[in-house]
């Protein structure tokens, strides 16, 4: 049975629909991310789960209990904020103890739990420090310990790593994921960073304009983006305009050259459609499997360290491809004519409008 169930959740401000018909069922212990650009309604949805915003319509149930109209302090939900939101007048230990004190736990139990939680986030030595005496990463760990100390049934994280620098962000991301897995706590994570969502989540909800664009595992979202928006937002994709030659056979034409897609196309013959192609799916050498071949001219080469990113002009379109850097194979030169190879399975037709 699902642990967190959201049905037909809506939020409107005046005429503006911020969240429209949001449905999701999250299993116990699952890590779900809401991914989308700013203004897509992901944070508003999270805030409705926390109780900081009232839903215009719909229901939110946690472990079978309808919490839609409960105030935040009765939902037993832990929350971690982008701005850390540690109480500046309290030490790390006092911050962690706050929720337990509010719940009127005995002093001995509070002390034991605070020590335990600071141990879990690996900061037992900073118990006596005030927030201003800690780095951003340390503050966010204390905030996490504080949110977990009261043993909430649900953990909500609102872009918790956005304010941190890149190295700390990656380190903390892994720790956060491990901690979540060890504790088995059901978690909803809001982010605009696709790498974060892909690396941490069991499932991802990609959102745009208050709607769910796609809901699926990171593998599904990355490899089978259902809409142009998802394809463009998750990962780096080539999105190409193509003319449908034979919809049933998956035959399309780009820049005057014909290709095959392994899937049926929703459009009719003669119409234009959008297809996506991952940069890593395109190669410069022939794999010999009888896939698509296309001639083009190298327009740009960027050396990114482990990867060389090459942009190739094909008619009016541009196809970007990634190749691993190999020391004995120098990158191609601008203006060179090359043949690109990619499998029909890698050509992803995109729905223009989601039903």
């Amino acid at each position, binding site marked *: 049975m699902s642990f967190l169930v959201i049905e037909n959740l809506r939020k409107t401000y005046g005429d503006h629909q911020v969240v429209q018909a949001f449905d999701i069922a999250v299993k116990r212990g699952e890590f779900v991310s809401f991914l989308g650009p700013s203004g897509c309604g992901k944070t508003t949805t999270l805030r409705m789960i*926390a*109780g900081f915003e009232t839903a215009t319509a719909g229901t939110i149930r946690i472990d079978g209990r309808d919490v839609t109209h409960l105030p935040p302090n009765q939902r037993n939900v*832990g929350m971690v*904020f982008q701005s850390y939101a540690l109480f*500046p*007048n309290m030490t790390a230990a006092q911050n962690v103890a706050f929720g337990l004190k509010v719940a009127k736990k005995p002093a001995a139990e509070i002390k034991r739990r605070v020590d335990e939680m600071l141990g879990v986030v690996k900061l037992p030595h900073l118990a006596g420090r005030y927030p201003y*005496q*800690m780095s951003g990463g340390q503050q966010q760990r204390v905030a996490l310990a*504080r949110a977990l100390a*009261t043993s909430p049934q649900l953990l909500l994280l609102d872009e918790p790593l956005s304010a941190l620098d890149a190295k700390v962000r990656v380190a903390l991301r892994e720790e956060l994921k491990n901690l979540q897995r060890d504790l088995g706590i059901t978690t909803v994570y809001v982010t605009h960073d696709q790498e974060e969502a892909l690396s941490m989540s069991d499932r991802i909800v990609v959102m745009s304009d208050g709607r769910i664009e796609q809901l699926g595992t990171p593998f599904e979202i990355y490899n089978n983006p259902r809409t142009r928006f998802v394809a463009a937002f998750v990962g780096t994709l080539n999105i190409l305009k193509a003319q449908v030659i034979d919809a049933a056979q998956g035959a399309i034409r780009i820049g005057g050259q014909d290709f095959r897609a392994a899937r049926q196309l929703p459009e009719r013959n003669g119409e234009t459609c959008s297809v996506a192609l991952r940069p890593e799916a395109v190669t410069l050498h022939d794999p010999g499997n009888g896939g698509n071949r296309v001639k083009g001219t190298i327009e740009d080469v960027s050396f990114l360290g482990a990867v060389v990113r090459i942009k190739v002009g094909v008619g009016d379109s541009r196809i970007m491809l990634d190749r691993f850097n190999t020391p004995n194979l120098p990158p191609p030169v601008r203006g060179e004519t090359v043949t690109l190879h990619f499998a029909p399975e890698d050509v992803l037709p995109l729905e223009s409008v989601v039903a």
Partner: protein
Amino acid sequence: MRRARILPWLALAVGVIYFLVPLIATFEFSLRILRGRYSFQAYANVLGDPQFQSTFLFSVVVAVATIVVGTLLVVPTAYWIRLKLPRMRPYVEFVTLLPLVIPAIVLVFGYLKLYNSSSILPLTAADWSTNVLLVFGYVTLALPYMYRAVDTGLRAIDVRSLTEAAESLGAARATILFQVILPNVKVAVMSGAFLTFAIVIGEFTLASLLDRPAFGPYLQLVGANKAYEPAALAIIAFAITWACMGLIQVFGRDPRTASRPAF
């Protein structure tokens, strides 16, 4: 170049003379109560006067009461406006600034009209209730300073996130206000409190027209009847105000911003 450097010093010198000479003159005059030599006799007279002690004590009590009532009124109001009614802020700010525009004499006549002994709420009928009215009047007079100070303090913290963090940890509104918000605007409340103290301790109009035995009317009484003691009182009053300002400086230094370690 040289000219440019002299001018600021000249301006400073004029300013210092303008403010300090009358003060030094007053101080010097206050020491001349005994013919032919300087002494602190005028100060001894003032401090030894039982009326000085009683009126000063009365004003201190009223000032403390004003600070307590003002804090309890202003902190929750400013907090609520920051949290839930940000659009109301300009209006509330305007209302809190009104006491600077409306003279105290207008205020007190309004009070006397509204709360006189034959009105529905005869606050001026008894001493204790007149004292209550006096405190409320002072809360109004100190409102611009108290509200500004607290609002500035609230601006320095992330009121919304702190409130939401506390709420998600199970805290009720009162707990949030007293354990999270108030301790974090303590410094601002302190500076508002000292300003309030400085205003209330020497206030004349309200106290005099409500006929309260406060320090302000005593100052006036002494000033009208004696020669050297008023000068001594003026110096004492200055000292009290300066002490308040000094205390703002001491308590106004936020330890959280005083030393930031580099990480």
